[in-house]
């Protein structure tokens, strides 16, 4: 009987995640983890589009900011209830995502990346310059914390941690279900070769667009959670440097894998917090680290673990493999 199965590892991590507030000594660690969970939700969104469908989007910090500002404006200026504002923020992000996707998806590969990079920057500029709506560089202050659900309140660090953790688990579950379904395989077919996908009858534009909108939904959700968690937002959350942070989390964790976004985000957020004393020189460590990972492990940490596991399996079953090879040659 093996104890170290994938299933047990997942159960153990979930139990650990839920018991963490009881173990943690201070709110600082909780705060850091909650924040990295929020980033991870956005990275899951990017992964669905860039990892599984093969379209590298550099606009998702912009969609994150749209989600954050929608929630901020709806609660602060329109006085909407938090939960209603959360739903609206996600919907607004999706609608804007749909419109941008319709145009952006006419381009491919690096042109798509460059186009979405520009879109991301335009979103940032709009937020920064439209002072009448967004308060510009002053930012939005006094965003309310998540509203109560019946007797449950979200005014302590631990309760907010649990709220975000629940959202993260839900997002992972949804992404898991998508990736393992025909829809997910359709996205992978498009990543594999769009022409080939078309020859077997897949409407590539329709599927790319749903993947794009879904991924903006997750980015918007993350942004809205961020706004109510930090309770202050400025235009910087839509900047390209945030975009490249998110992309780095994805690349280090493993693009196109299910666990990659979570692994990469947790690792890099914790690492960068612990290297705070180095200030800007942190990049001297991250730069080379990222380069090495891309050269040696193009599918990130999660990809490296898969490769290691399948190699080990090969070693355990040399006879079975040999038999298959003989059969293959005969066939």
């Amino acid at each position, binding site marked *: 009987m093996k104890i170290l199965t994938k299933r047990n590892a997942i159960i153990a991590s979930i139990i650990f995640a839920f018991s963490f507030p009881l173990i943690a000594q201070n709110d600082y660690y909780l705060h850091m983890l909650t924040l990295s969970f929020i980033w991870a939700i956005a990275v899951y969104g990017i992964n669905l589009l860039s990892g599984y469908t093969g379209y590298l989007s550099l606009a998702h910090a912009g969609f994150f900011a749209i989600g954050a500002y929608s929630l901020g404006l709806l609660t602060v200026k329109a006085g909407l209830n938090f939960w209603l504002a959360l739903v609206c923020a996600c919907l607004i992000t999706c609608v804007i995502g749909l419109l941008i996707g319709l145009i952006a998806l006419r381009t491919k590969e690096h042109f798509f990346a460059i186009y979405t990079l520009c879109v991301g920057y335009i979103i940032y500029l709009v937020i920064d310059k439209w002072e009448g709506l967004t308060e510009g560089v002053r930012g939005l202050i006094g965003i309310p914390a998540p509203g109560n659900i019946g007797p449950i309140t979200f005014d302590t660090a631990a309760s907010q941690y649990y709220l975000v953790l629940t959202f993260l688990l839900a997002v992972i579950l949804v992404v898991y279900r998508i990736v393992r379904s*025909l829809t997910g*395989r*359709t996205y*992978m*077919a498009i990543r*594999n*070769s769009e*022409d*080939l996908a*078309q*020859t*077997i*009858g*897949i*409407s*590539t534009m329709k599927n790319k667009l749903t993947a794009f909108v879904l991924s903006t939904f997750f980015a918007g959700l993350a942004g809205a959670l961020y706004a109510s968690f930090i309770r202050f937002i400025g235009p910087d959350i839509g900047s390209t440097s945030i975009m490249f942070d998110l992309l780095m989390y994805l690349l280090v964790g493993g693009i196109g894998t299910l666990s990659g976004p979570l692994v990469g985000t947790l690792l890099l957020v914790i690492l960068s917090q612990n290297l705070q004393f180095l200030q800007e020189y942190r990049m001297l460590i991250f730069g080379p680290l990222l380069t090495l990972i891309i050269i040696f492990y193009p599918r990130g940490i999660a990809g490296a673990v898969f490769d290691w596991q399948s190699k080990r399996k090969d070693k355990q079953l040399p006879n079975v493999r040999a038999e*298959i090879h003989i059969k*293959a*040659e005969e*066939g």
Partner: protein
Amino acid sequence: MLKLTDVTVNYASFTAIKHVNIEVAKGELVVLLGANGAGKSTTFRAISGISKLSKGEIHFLGIPIGGRAPDKNVREGIVQCAEGRKLFPQMTVQENLKMGAYVHRKQKGEIKHSLEYVYHLFPILKEKHHDEAGSLSGGQQQMLAIGRSLMSKPKLLMLDEPSVGLAPLIVEQMFQVIEEINREGITILLAEQNANAALSIADKGYVFENGEIVVQGSARDLLANDEVRKAYIGA
């Protein structure tokens, strides 16, 4: 069943095929012969709707289909099995086959039925249905590619060089299966360089050169044609 009238396809300023006229009747097995770059694949891409027509029209079952979206064409029964055994290498054999039934994804019963049919044609695929497609041998990959096309229940199956890069024995098996599929009532358009094997199972053929059809006729006539023999059979 399928009729190409004066079809021309340009890639930017380059003309890939010009003034192509092809007619395929229901139940026929028609072969397109020609060297690399002669225009066979472009003709397929034009029929399946991936490449846009610059001129001319294509009729399928009497309806003009020039400019129709590829997924619509697959739903209507035209499927292309692309050259070079293009599979989804990380998916298993069975997942690849199920992707082929994408246009019928709501009819679970029919998919099961088609799956059994493909496994009956290629028993080795059933044996390996849990293996990754990328781990199969060349011949098996080609079988999987053909099987995946059949999963969409086509009326017209277009096979682009199914024999390329395969061992002679496997090529022979492959042509037997193609003949069997054709006998079951599926019309087949076959692009090949292996003229001898292709013409031996075909009803008629067209010979492409530099994007144009230079010779056409019944399979028997083409086999007897000196030019064709010189260029493609080497006798």
